[in-house]
C-alpha cells in the first residue's frame, strides 16, 4: 500500500496514541481456527503458547464462522471474548489475531495456473482483473459474491510485479470478501489488530512445504476439511497441483495413482491431514501417513507446550495446535 502524509493525518489514531499507544509493547497473538463443527484458539506471546482452548465458537462474542448464522443478538458482556481468553491465559495487551478459516468448497478458490495461459503480464493487473471480474481470468465463474484475491508462486510465497520467465505457474487464491469484512469488524470490536486471514488449505500446504523435506519424491497430500477433500501434489517443495473434491476420501484416494501416472511420479508418498482424528473405517482404506500426534511432534521437533496457571505443562500434539503455533511463529 502506498502511504501518504495526508492519508496518515486523516487517519491519525489520536485516541490510541493518547491512551499510551506510543509505548505500547507488542501484544499477544490469538490464532483462531474456525470451522462449522470445530474451532480452537491458541494464545501465544513471544512465540510461546500460553493457552489453548477448543470449541470457542459457542462462547459469547466468539468470532464469526463462515457458513454459520452469526446473528446471536447483542452481547452485553462487560468484557470481550478476547479479554476473557487472555485473562484465562494470563496474558494482557492489545491482541493480534490470525484467522485460519475452514471454508466450504464454494467459499474457497485455489488453483494452480500456468502463467503462459494468463493474459495479464504482472501480478497487479492480474489482481485488478480478478477484482473487476474473475471471468476475465478464469473464463467460467458463476459466483456473484465479491472475493478477495491473492497470488502466490508454487512455493506459496507472495509474488509481485512482472511475472518472471522462470516462474511458470502461479497459485491464485480467493475467499469471499464479506467473510473477511466480518472478521475485520469483529477484530475492531475486540480492539485488536488483524495480522492475517489464512485459509486452512493454504496454511497446511505452506506448513507442509516448509516442514517436510521430500527430496525427489512426490507428495500427495489429502486435506480432509469439513465440507470437502482437497488433494495437493507437492514436488521439490512446490505445489504443482491442487484439486477440491466433494466426494468422500476413498474416491480421492483412488484418484492418486491416476494422477501419479499423469505426473510421471515414480516415487510418491501420501500424507493425510485432518483437524479431527480419521475414523477407523476410512483409515483402513487409506495407505499413507496421517499428520497427527507423534508424527507432528517429530516433524516440528517438539510438542506444543502450554503452561497452565498452576505451573504444570500441557503437551498438545493435535494438528490444530501445531498448525496454529507454526503459523503464529511464521506471521507474528
Amino acid at each position, binding site marked *: 500500500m502506498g502511504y501518504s502524509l495526508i492519508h496518515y493525518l486523516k487517519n491519525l489514531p489520536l485516541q490510541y496514541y493518547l491512551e499510551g499507544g506510543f509505548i505500547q509493547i507488542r501484544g499477544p497473538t490469538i490464532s483462531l481456527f474456525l470451522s462449522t463443527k470445530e474451532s480452537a484458539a491458541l494464545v501465544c506471546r513471544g512465540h510461546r503458547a500460553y493457552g489453548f482452548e477448543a470449541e470457542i465458537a459457542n462462547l459469547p462474542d466468539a468470532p464469526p464462522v463462515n457458513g454459520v448464522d452469526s446473528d446471536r443478538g447483542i452481547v452485553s458482556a462487560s468484557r470481550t471474548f478476547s479479554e476473557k481468553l487472555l485473562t484465562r491465559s494470563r496474558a494482557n495487551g492489545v491482541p493480534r489475531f490470525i484467522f485460519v478459516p475452514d471454508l466450504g468448497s464454494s467459499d474457497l478458490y485455489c488453483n494452480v495456473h500456468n502463467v503462459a495461459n494468463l493474459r495479464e503480464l504482472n501480478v497487479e493487473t492480474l489482481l485488478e482483473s480478478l477484482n473487476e471480474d474473475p471471468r476475465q481470468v478464469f473464463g467460467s465463474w458463476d459466483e456473484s459474491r465479491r472475493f478477495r484475491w491473492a497470488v502466490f508462486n508454487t512455493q506459496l510465497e507472495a509474488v509481485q510485479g512482472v511475472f518472471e520467465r522462470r516462474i511458470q505457474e502461479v497459485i491464485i487464491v480467493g475467499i469471499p470478501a464479506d467473510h473477511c469484512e466480518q472478521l475485520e469488524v469483529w477484530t475492531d470490536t475486540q480492539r485488536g489488530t488483524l495480522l492475517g486471514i489464512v485459509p486452512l488449505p493454504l496454511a497446511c500446504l505452506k506448513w507442509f512445504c516448509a516442514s517436510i523435506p521430500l527430496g525427489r519424491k512426490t507428495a500427495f497430500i489429502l486435506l480432509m476439511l469439513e465440507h470437502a477433500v482437497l488433494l495437493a501434489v507437492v514436488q521439490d517443495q512446490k505445489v504443482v497441483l491442487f484439486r477440491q473434491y466433494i466426494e468422500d476420501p476413498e474416491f480421492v484416494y483412488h484418484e492418486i495413482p491416476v494422477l501419479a501416472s499423469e505426473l510421471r511420479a515414480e516415487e510418491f508418498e501420501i500424507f493425510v491431514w485432518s483437524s479431527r482424528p480419521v475414523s477407523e473405517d476410512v483409515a483402513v482404506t487409506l495407505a499413507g501417513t496421517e499428520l497427527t500426534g507423534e508424527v507432528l511432534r517429530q516433524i516440528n521437533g517438539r510438542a506444543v507446550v502450554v503452561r497452565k496457571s498452576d505451573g504444570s505443562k500441557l503437551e498438545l500434539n493435535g494438528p490444530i495446535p501445531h498448525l496454529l503455533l507454526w503459523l503464529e511463529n511464521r*506471521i507474528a
Partner: protein
Amino acid sequence: MKYLFVSPEKVAQDQYRHGAVFRLAGALILFGIMLQVPCVFIAVSCWKEFRDRSTEQTLLRTELSELQKANIPLKEARQKLTQIRQWEPILSNRVPISSLLNAVQVSIPGGTVLDSISIETEQFDHLPVQGGMYRVPRNYRLVLQGLERPNKGEELQIFCEALQKRLPTGSELVRSERLEQRGDGTVPFLLQYSVKPSGSYFGLGLKKIAEPDNL
C-alpha cells in the same frame, strides 16, 4: 502471509498504530501541537485585545463624529462669544460714574459741603474690536473741592476713609489739602483720588441682576 486477505485500510491502520516510523511521526505531531498551545493562546489573547481596541476605537470615532456634528451649530455662537469677550476689558474698565457719584454722596459727612466734583479719564489703552480700535482708560481722576465747617477737623478724615472704602480696589488718595481758613470760619479743602477700574463695582452701590440673560 502477513496481512493476507486483510483490506489495505486495515493494514494502514495497523501500521499507523504499531509501525515505529508512524508512531515517531505521531509523537512529533502531538509534541508540535503541544508546543502550539501557548502560541495559540497568546495569539487568541492578542486578537481579542486587538478586537476590543478596534471596537473601542470605532466607538470613539463615532462619538467624535457626533461631537463634530454637534460642534457645527456652536461655531457661530463661539464666534459671537469671542466678540463679546473682546468687549470684556472695555466694559470692566468703565467705571459707572453715577455709582461713583452715589458713593461720594453717601460718604460725605454732615459738616462738609462740596463745591465741585471733577471726574477725568487718563492713561488710555487701545483695544481692538470688530470695526476698529477702542480707547479704554486705565485710570480715573476724581477731584473733590469743598468746604469744611469750622472746628470740624475730623470730618474730612472720616469722609476720606468712608469714600476710600467704597472706591474700587486699587484706588488711592493722591492729594489731600486744606487751604487757608476763610473769613466766615470755613476751611476749603481739595481731595484728589486715583480710581482704578477693577471690574468689581459693588462697593460703589451697584446691585447684581437677579437673573442674568442667557446668551
